């Protein structure tokens, strides 16, 4: 007998249940299909403007810096401003995501923009989040041909653009959006929920930013 059959058999014996029992199978099928919500905190249930304010405040509490922009075409100059304010070279790497690729990067003559996955030498990565979660100031990023996951972790500085209209109150709203875009029960290969820059408190419980991932997380909220 394989270990698979042995383990499943032991579970069923311990539970005194069978794997073909219709009510048990129905209960499981129902939960997986209906995806019922459990307790959802009221904190994020706010009108849109206040929801975005909460997102910005919560992101700030976990040491992200946040800048609000009225329009997407202001993104390249906001990126250049950030680099100047941190004394960084005018160079970033981004994915080919159309939300980033179609921006007027040429307006920043000094700025070098390379594209594709990071091999570890980039100081600054620029990504576009699919959503924000106001409840905890969390960004959601998904992988795909135009959105390398390495950009979220290897560069020292991570600049993330999020559209204000995609900031929801809670994670459950984000799951519903994922199912609409990718289909029920399907996920992009990597979904990253990012809440602030990388940190560690492993030495004497002292909180330090910039453990293995980005030392700084800079969020541009557009709209």
């Amino acid at each position: 007998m394989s270990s698979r059959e042995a383990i499943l058999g032991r579970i069923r014996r311990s539970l005194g249940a069978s794997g073909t029992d219709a009510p048990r199978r129905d209960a499981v099928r129902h939960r997986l299909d209906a995806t019922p919500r459990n307790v959802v905190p009221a904190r994020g249930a706010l009108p849109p403007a206040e929801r975005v304010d909460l997102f910005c405040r919560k992101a700030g509490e976990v040491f992200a810096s946040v800048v609000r922009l009225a329009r997407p075409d202001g993104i390249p100059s906001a990126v250049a401003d950030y680099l100047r304010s941190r004394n960084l070279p005018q160079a970033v790497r981004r994915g080919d995501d159309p939300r980033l690729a179609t921006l007027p990067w040429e307006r920043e003559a000094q700025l070098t923009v390379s594209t594709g996955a990071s091999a570890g030498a980039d100081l600054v990565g620029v990504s576009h989040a699919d959503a924000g979660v106001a409840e905890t100031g969390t960004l959601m990023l998904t992988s795909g041909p135009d959105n390398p996951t390495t950009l979220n972790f290897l560069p020292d500085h991570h600049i993330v653009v999020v559209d204000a209209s995609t900031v929801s109150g809670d994670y459950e709203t984000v799951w519903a959006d994922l199912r609409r875009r990718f289909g029920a029960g399907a996920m992009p290969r990597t979904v990253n929920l990012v809440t602030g820059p990388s940190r560690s408190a492993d030495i004497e419980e002292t909180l330090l930013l910039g453990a293995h991932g980005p030392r700084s997380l800079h969020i541009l909220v557009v709209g």
Partner: protein
Amino acid sequence: MSGAPASATFPKNARAALANPPLLKAIAHIEETLVSGRRRAVDALPEFEALRDAGRDLKAHTLAHLDLYLEAFEQKVVEAGGHVHWAADAAEANSIVLDICQAAGARTVTKGKSMITEEVGLNAFLEGNGVRPVETDLGEYIIQLRGETPSHIIAPAVHVNKEQVAADFRRVHTDLDPRRNLDEPVSLLAEARGVLRERFLAADVGITGANFLVAETGSTVIVTNEGNGDLSQILPKTHIVLASIEKVVPTLEDVATIMRLLARSATGQEMSVYTTFSTGPRRPGDPDGPEAFHVVLLDNGRSAMLGTEFEDMLRCIRCGACLNHCPVYRSIGGHAYGSVYPGPMGSVLTPSLQGLETSAHLANASTLCGRCESVCPMRIPLPKMLRHWREKEFERHLTPRKARFGLAAWRFLADRPRLYGLTTRLAAWGLSRLAGKSGALTSLPLAGGWTRWRDLPAPEGGTFRTEWAKRGRH
């Protein structure tokens, strides 16, 4: 691992820990960081208690249907192009992981923090078979350099101070400038970041654990703060997830519920920095990510806990709150337990995993004060289960002879109320005489361990039963 004390010698280990001032100083930080952090985070979320109920209920539902959710999870992983392996015990899990590493031609593997790999002893096994495991979580990296095991399930190096870390880094990172300054945690972190960055980029295989396995989508989920788990799993060509069977939850909604409990209970954060869902290997057109994705599902004694008085333990999400709030853990640290999992959750889980014969002391490493249960996000009745183990210890004659004699003597008296009354009255009178005017006893036969650290207040007036009888007449 070298030098790790065993559970069988717990009383001796605990005495050694109490006589180790640097250790006591290091673990004293837990109060102002983890305990007060949890308090603040819980106070800031009105729904926290309701979330605990929801977390308990969803885990209970999952455990009652565990076979079916595991089958659903497996099917989804396979649909996404991943592989699922089932391991009945530690030896099988190790050999599955080694086979995958060898098939990938791996010489080094980077590891995200995983208690399951500690449980199965994966590092020693891989090293013995020519594959070099590199721990990448800062705390795990430090203890790997020291040849130690984690002393806390979420803060593995909580027992180490920064001077010790600096000395270890100087000993191991010999290619760096010996005159460099390593006085502050920030320079230690920067050095580890630089050294480990090279390891991440050079690794052939990445191994992580999982905080959740999602049956709805076939995703494995890791929750971290440093980003090391992510670098371990996106850079190498092969990603292996080693997870125990009770990590499965039905849906993303269920992940959200437990996420809201996990970081708050563990570190006082509202959310850990990185919560990452991995579903299968890299997709067509993806510019990065692993080409192969393997999930190893480990049983190692858990299926036998279902349907027993220890089933509730399988709800545990490994937040560490019971350790942080335990007066025993806080007095001796984690190594004295001599088990992979220390503290209250470890004392309940260890006998199930390794047998009561070598771990019978652990159930007694508790005052049964109940703080662990009061902070457990999954409402696991830890004190009740510790009492179950104490009963089994007594039934199986594993209790030390002195303690058995004491219990037998007490039972003899308790069965004879008149004799019990007489004995306690005599004892109260005797203790009060012994104490004299000071009203306190500085030493007492058979209780030297207690009076060594503080005085015993002598009884004043009658026994509880005589006082109770007096009140009854009023």
